[in-house]
């Protein structure tokens, strides 16, 4: 019985620590193509790298995975599985016990591409302060939030689906002299973490089953030690998945408003030209009393 337990623990440790095979990840172009060909993979995501129009932005929105699920009243086990299930399909799956072999099938069920968008724009305006206030209003309209502000330099987070619309709206503020949009595809990392998560959850289930069967204190302690390690790993990966989800769900836009010169409209009091006859300026009560 003891040998069986030790062997099981060893096998579990190997399974939990092993990473899924790299060749099957969608990171490389070859694997990406095979991924793309999959019947469940959305075609819209393939063209969502740079979509300046609303239509394309909507396509991106459709392709986005839903944010990390809120913790419901389900058990820890279910929550973990739902987390990965949500990342993969956007729908909550029933909590079923998984076998290590089944984890492989999750790679192929991943339907969304995880893309982090970042925008960096500079807009020349006549009144930077006013433009910054208008930008904050617009941010609220797009359900975004402020990350930081340094005078007229703002860093805002905008829901990824509305990212291009937001940039387009900013163009209307003034003269956009600089615009840089970058995207980072983190699908590979996300799939990697999801696989590891699934493996660890499965390993934890088996450890719990072993723990229930163990009769000796020494065995129980050994299993619990392993269980603690696996649970810790699960939590760590869960946090990383949530972090990535947030990065994907909200695009980061850095906006700099600066004073636009040349055509500035003067809004102060009317300017009057002083008389060109200089000696007239000399007459004054001050000069009268002085000399």
């Amino acid at each position: 019985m003891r040998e069986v337990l030790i062997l099981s623990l060893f096998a579990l440790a190997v399974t939990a620590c092993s990473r899924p095979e790299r060749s099957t990840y969608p990171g490389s172009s070859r694997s990406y193509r095979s991924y793309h060909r999959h019947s469940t993979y959305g075609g819209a995501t393939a063209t969502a790298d740079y979509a300046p129009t609303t239509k394309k932005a909507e396509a991106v929105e459709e392709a986005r995975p839903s944010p990390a699920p809120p913790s419901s009243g389900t058990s820890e086990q279910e929550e973990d599985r739902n987390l990965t299930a949500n990342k993969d399909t956007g729908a909550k799956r029933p909590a079923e016990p998984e076998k290590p072999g089944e984890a492989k099938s999750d790679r192929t069920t991943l339907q969304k591409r995880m893309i982090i968008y970042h925008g960096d724009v500079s807009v020349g305006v006549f009144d930077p302060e006013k433009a910054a206030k208008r930008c904050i209003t617009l941010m609220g309209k797009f359900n975004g939030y402020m990350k930081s502000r340094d005078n007229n330099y703002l860093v805002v987070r905008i829901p990824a689906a509305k990212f291009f619309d937001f940039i387009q709206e900013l163009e209307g503020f003034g003269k956009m002299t600089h615009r840089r949009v970058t995207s980072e595809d983190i699908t590979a990392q996300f799939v990697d973490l999801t696989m590891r998560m699934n493996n660890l959850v499965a390993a934890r289930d088996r450890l719990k089953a072993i723990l229930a069967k163990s009769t000796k204190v020494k065995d129980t302690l050994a299993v619990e030690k392993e269980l603690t390690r696996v649970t810790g790993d699960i939590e760590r990966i869960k946090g990383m998945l949530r972090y990535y989800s947030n990065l994907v769900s909200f695009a980061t836009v850095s906006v700099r408003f600066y004073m636009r010169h040349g055509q500035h409209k003067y809004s102060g009091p009317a300017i009057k030209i002083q008389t060109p006859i200089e000696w007239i300026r000399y007459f004054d009560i001050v000069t009268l009393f002085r000399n």
Partner: protein
Amino acid sequence: MKKYIFIIAILAASCGHVNFEPPKGFVETKKTDSTLRLVAADASAIRVTYRENKKNGNADFWATLMQRELTEFKGYKLEKKTKFKKSGYVLEMRAPYKHKNFHYTVGILAGEDDLYIVELGCENNVYAAHLKSFMSLMGKINGDLD
């Protein structure tokens, strides 16, 4: 020789454009070819400035120019603008001086070739009395112009 020097001295003395007798209560403190400064015992001051008039430079032109300069650029408050005889104007203003409101009155007299600007600066309580002196001086200058 002494005779010639005396004649030259008399001519030189009468050559200036501002040879006017100070009105009652005022003392002459400075006199140049074009400027005469008179001071009263209460520190009120009168200054007469002579300038050569230019073509088309009538009293209306100079009064408008002076009014614009003083009210729009120096912030003086015009209280009264009156015409003085045929070729003159009097601008009665209030002017801030050392955080107090002083009376500052400017008279403009424009002849064909000559232009005189007469200023009076004084405190409120002595203004009425000094205005009379100011007006008498204006009358004298106007008589010279005619």
